[in-house]
């Protein structure tokens, strides 16, 4: 009970350390969503609209990768970015950039898989009409992505939820450095093990509140744009 009370005090007094952590977490996870969307949306759409040998295998693989364990992604990115790794010269290990890359890799399959499903369903409906209007391959992809925008927002939210909630990948590639790469989830893990339950709990409450707020905003945007465009 007392821990809960202290947690509220930390939040309501605007504790600087706590809000720095919140800010970094949001910056990392939102950047990861933007980066993953740039890859996952076109990838999913192309996968939905093309047929090539081995397409089924790719679809199964993308679907399976939705459940990638964050620590495994973290480890893979760690090996790539470490001093002796192939991308070691970039020198970005243990920086927020590395955390963005790791989280983006983690959620590209989620966004791509949900996009593929959505676009495939919409294509069945649109195929004849778009063919009759002589819409080329590039036009098809952009038209379907735009017309599926409301459903795809859900895919992006799923990606954001996963990125904001994971701890394994950012812990490994970020290193949980105080004031530099410490996010809400890694801080919660650390503070809990140190016994600093008020801070851990405060962070937990903020994390859940942020996820709720973003989903509520997205829902509002969806209702609004449904009214605008049907």
């Amino acid at each position: 009970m007392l821990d809960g009370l202290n947690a509220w005090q930390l939040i309501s007094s605007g504790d600087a350390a706590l809000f720095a952590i919140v800010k970094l977490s949001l910056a990392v996870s939102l950047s990861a969503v933007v980066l993953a969307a740039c890859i996952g949306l076109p990838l999913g759409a192309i996968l939905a609209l093309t047929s090539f040998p081995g397409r089924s295998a790719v679809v199964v693989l993308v679907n399976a990768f939705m459940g990638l364990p964050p620590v495994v992604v973290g480890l893979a990115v760690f090996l790539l970015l470490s001093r002796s790794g192939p991308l070691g010269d970039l020198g970005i290990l243990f920086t927020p950039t590395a955390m963005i890359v790791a989280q983006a890799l983690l959620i590209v399959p989620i966004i791509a898989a949900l996009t593929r499903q959505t676009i495939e369903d919409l294509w069945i409906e649109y195929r004849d009409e778009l063919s009759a209007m002589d819409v080329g391959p590039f036009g098809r992809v952009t038209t379907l992505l735009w017309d599926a925008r409301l459903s795809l927002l859900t895919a992006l939210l799923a990606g954001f939820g996963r990125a904001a909630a994971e701890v394994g990948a950012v812990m490994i590639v970020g290193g949980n450095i105080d004031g530099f790469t410490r996010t809400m989830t890694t801080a919660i893990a650390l503070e809990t093990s140190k016994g600093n339950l008020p801070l851990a709990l405060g962070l937990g409450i903020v994390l859940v509140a942020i996820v709720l707020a973003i989903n509520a905003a997205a829902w509002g945007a969806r209702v609004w744009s449904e009214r605008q465009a049907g």
Partner: protein
Amino acid sequence: MRAPITDLPVMFDSVTVRAGATTIIDRLTLTLASGSPTFVVGPNGAGKSTLLRLCMGLARPTEGQMTWGGRTDPKPTRRALVFQRPVMLRRTASANVAYGLTHADYPREKVAARTVELLERVGLSELAMRPARRLSGGEQQRLALARALARDPELLLLDEPTASLDPAATRSVEEIVRAAAQSGIKIVMASHDLGQVRRLAGEVVFMLRGAVLERTLADDFLKNPSTPEAAAFVRGDLVV
């Protein structure tokens, strides 16, 4: 400048379409050239929709040859198809028409003005900013016509566009079609509504089981059809 490409006449040279073991179109030979509206008439399953899809290039012959203005390339340059249930893009009515114009390579700077004209032509000016999918069935069908006319077609294919509309909505669709025909657009329309044939058709292509049984002027078809099947159809008997 692009050389003036024409899609007419559309010629079917003993075209057969099969889906698995079913023959949908059976050795059909037909020429559709400019002129008065052609109505493709016949019971459900006669192959009317497939005939229109072939014309549009959406379906390909299993056997036989097709040409559009002498070309074998089915790219829809100067033709458009209005489906029985047109798909409205998830945008405003106006954006649907603009989309059609853009994809018909209409000059970008003139798209907005042309969109206004086309919406006026189908009587939807007041609903321009409405989401297309919120329009009524009749309004959607008119919007689909505007979007098809955006392609500046020589050949306008219509697949039972009024099949699920009430009389008032049917009338406004028919008025648009009539105006399009008067402006020189060749109309090929599938229908099984004989009243509509009387009101709009110049000639009738009567189809049964994937073949053309009769091709005559609309008046002759309605008054003295030459095949017993067509006679039964005109009488209102069930023809299968």
